[in-house]
């Protein structure tokens, strides 16, 4: 009995010492996983996940604090990719999936308060104090962060319409009528 205990204790001490030494000797800085997760996130910086930007959310996922289904702009597609990367189960998105949108400023109503400029995380709004503001559409990520601060409610979201530049060939569908 005592030999058994002694031997197990010896083993524990030896292995523990080896692991402890290795953890100091072979310490590695940085977490490459965060970057991989961040590359999947859509970079709208909208904060709809409850974190102030895409990077903090990525860090939270990596640390296991956040679920992978909190990013509405990424959509189900994003959830699937995250599940793939992290080996977790695919979950339904927390919020509703919306079509891609851009913000539009009603230029007649805008009073030039610059509040939306301060709110925009990607500097997609141009304007100066007491001058009309406008949104640079190609840069707008559709995060909706500018809507709340506007005191005169002159910003609204418009879904991106299909045009020749973003038109896609559709998935071929079999016509049931013909097959029947």
């Amino acid at each position, binding site marked *: 009995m005592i030999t058994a205990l002694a031997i197990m204790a010896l083993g524990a001490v030896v292995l523990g010492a080896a692991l402890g030494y290795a953890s100091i000797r*072979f310490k590695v800085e940085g977490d490459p996983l965060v970057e991989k997760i961040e590359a999947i996130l859509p970079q709208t910086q909208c904060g709809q996940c409850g974190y102030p930007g895409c990077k903090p959310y990525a860090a939270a996922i990596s640390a296991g604090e956040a679920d992978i289904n909190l990013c509405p702009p990424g959509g189900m597609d994003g959830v699937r990719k995250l599940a793939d990367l992290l080996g977790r189960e695919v979950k339904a998105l927390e919020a509703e999936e919306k079509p891609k949108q851009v913000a539009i400023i009603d230029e007649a109503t805008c009073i030039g308060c610059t509040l939306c400029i301060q709110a925009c995380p990607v500097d997609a709004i141009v304007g100066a104090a007491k001058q009309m503001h406008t949104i640079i559409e190609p840069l707008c990520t559709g995060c909706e962060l500018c809507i709340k601060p506007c005191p005169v409610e002159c910003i609204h979201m418009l879904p991106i319409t299909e045009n020749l530049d973003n038109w896609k060939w559709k998935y071929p569908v079999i016509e049931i009528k013909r097959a029947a």
Partner: protein
Amino acid sequence: MTHYLFIIVGAVFVNNVVLVKILGLCPFMGVSKKLETAFGMGAATTFVLTVATGASYIIDHYLLMPFGLEYLRTLSFIVTIAAIVQLTEMVIQKTSPVLHQVLGIYLPLITTNCAVLGVPLLNVANKHDFVESLLFGAGSAIGFSLVLVIFAGIRERVEGADVPTHFQGTAIAMVTAGLMSLAFMGFAGLDRYQ
């Protein structure tokens, strides 16, 4: 020498650790969605299993047996394997980040791989000597990798197939695994010359 060959062939095909002995099913189902990851997992397991069989043989023969502590085998093997895996991971992460990229995330998974514990225990049960233990470990690991890679290849194709909704995902993977297992049963008797 043919005796060693039989051990290897037997471990790889006839008594395949996954499909015949039904060990290590967790990584077999979990890490077989992609061919690349299956390769990574296979390589990591091969390395760890070979080292683990060697280490557990040494512990068994020079520590446990002289003191008559054979009943502590399972416990001490688990501890040894876990320590080896951890140590390997740390060393790889520091010395070769590239290799760690390939194997890194699979190494901790191997700690809980029952095939890694099962093979040293089988070694003891079959009274293998040191070389035989190593060969049996390596053979089992190769068999594991082989099956894992084949299975991942099949699953990649199954993903594109029209699988009925209720069979999608793990269900069809189980069916596939069953069929593969049946196929591997065909190797039975290959080592009868022994």
